């Protein structure tokens, strides 16, 4: 009796969260799928017609889509490379016995709390601006030509900005993992004559495997949807050089009012994100179970 009572009470307590999340997941998705099958433009309301998969055909054969897909992948991989390698290096450094460790840690973590629009605008104007930015001043001081970062290397510049925001997250997680490393195991390795390099590859790196996979998984989910940084720096340009999938769908929907086409793009983005998610969950499954 008691357990039955608790069970149904438990169900009642879980229900609101589950119902809300279910609605949040399913209603917009079904509506997006429905819109993606219509010829629906906000500029000509009431003219919606069913067009089947025509929107998908247009979206997938649009050169902007291929460009956006490549940019999305480069953005995710570029940021992952910088943050994972940098994160491990910083974590190893911060795990040393140094003076003022707590303060250095605070300095390194700070960028994570900076809102994306602030981070992007500060980098764009105060660092990467070809006339008044600090990089331009630095180049002039060294006798070089100032470089117009966002005009000549837009995607790379955005990768740098986003990597700056995510490096603290990677560092913090790697550091947490490092701190649980068994000191005695390291000492034993040293006694057996292991050098710093073999110690890193045979003890430290395997120990951090789980943390590394967690960083890759979580960052990928967020990085697939980078938006604000692109909106305030390059607006996806020049051309489509810094447009990712998220930005492409946004511009089709809210700038060109092509609801049908943008919905098809949204569904493509959902499918791609799910492929990545399944792939990553499989890949890290073993690590997470342990």
């Amino acid at each position: 009796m008691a357990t039955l009572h608790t069970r149904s009470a438990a169900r009642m307590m879980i229900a609101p969260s589950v119902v809300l999340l279910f609605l949040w997941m399913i209603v917009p998705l079904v509506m997006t799928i429905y819109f993606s099958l219509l010829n629906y433009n906000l500029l000509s309301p009431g003219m919606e017609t069913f067009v089947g998969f025509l929107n998908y055909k247009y979206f997938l054969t649009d050169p902007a889509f291929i460009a956006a897909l490549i940019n999305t992948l480069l953005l995710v991989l570029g940021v992952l490379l910088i943050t994972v390698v940098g994160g491990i290096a910083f974590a190893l450094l911060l795990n040393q016995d140094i003076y003022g460790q707590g303060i250095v840690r605070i300095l390194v973590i700070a960028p994570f709390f900076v809102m994306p629009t602030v981070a992007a605008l500060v980098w764009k104007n105060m660092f990467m601006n070809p006339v008044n930015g600090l990089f331009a001043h630095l180049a002039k001081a060294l006798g070089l030509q100032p470089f117009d970062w966002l005009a000549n290397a837009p995607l790379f510049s955005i990768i740098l900005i986003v990597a700056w925001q995510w490096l603290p997250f990677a560092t913090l997680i790697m550091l947490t993992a490092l701190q649980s490393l068994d000191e005695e195991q390291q000492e034993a390795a040293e006694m057996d004559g292991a050098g710093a390099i073999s110690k890193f590859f045979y003890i430290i790196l395997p120990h951090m495997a789980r943390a590394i996979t967690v960083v890759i998984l979580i960052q990928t989910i967020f990085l697939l949807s980078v938006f604000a940084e692109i909106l305030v720096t390059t607006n996806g340009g020049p051309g489509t050089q810094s447009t990712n999938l998220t930005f492409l769908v946004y511009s089709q929907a809210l700038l060109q009012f092509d609801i049908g086409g943008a919905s098809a793009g949204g569904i493509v983005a959902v499918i791609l994100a799910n492929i990545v998610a399944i792939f990553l969950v499989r890949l890290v499954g073993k690590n997470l179970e342990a």
Partner: protein
Amino acid sequence: MARKVSTRRKMVMTAVAWALGILIFFPILWTFLTSFKTEADAIASPPQFLFFHWTTESYAEVQSRSNYLSHFMNSVIISFGSTLIGLIIAIPAAWAMAFSPTKRTKDVLMWMLSTKMMPPVGALIPIYLMFRNFGLLDSRSGLVIILTLINLPIIVWMLYTYFKEIPGEILEAARMDGASLFKEIIYVLTPMAVPGIASTLLLNIILAWNEAFWTLNLTASKAAPLTAFIASYSSPEGLFYAKLSAASTMAIAPILILGWFSQKQLVRGLTFGAVK
């Protein structure tokens, strides 16, 4: 138990760590310093580091020209509102899953996590149209609803990992003493759960404060929180470095301070308990 490290090595490591730490922090420091410059000093060549005429005129101007305070209040209301509503919905769910788990509990948790993996563009169009039809565009209540939903999985997960650590025997003892479910929650569970709830609150306020997809797409001016307000500096006002810096400093300072207190919870919250 720390192994002996030579002083020389320690000094070198300290120097390297501090140099890199300051390098990473430098953009924030530079923004802070620039916010106290005049516009002329802000673009001076060569750049002035500390020896400029310190002034707070940019702060006053940002407030008077664009009513900064109202955007700040939007951020406060949206982030606190969505977090508190999220907690009210999530606390019972996390409690039930932690203390009367069934064989489906793990699946439910994993499913909740999977809702976070859905890219926001998959929902943008219907949400935008629904908001337009219901007059929720550029409204604070609309944003509170959306941010509650996107952070709900993280709130449930975080609370679950904290509640899991509360020994179940205490609850059994309370039940033996005849405490009802309601009393059990109020008198036994709540006091033990407060630290976990506080951590969850803190992290989710930070996440909601910095959320910049929905806030940019669903607001125009009236309900725009700081993320969207700062975005309006993208051109050409962003070239007024001192004002951009003053607005940015005010937008990030409160959350930077909160954030430094929440380092540990950050790891736990964002890795769904996978790394502790």
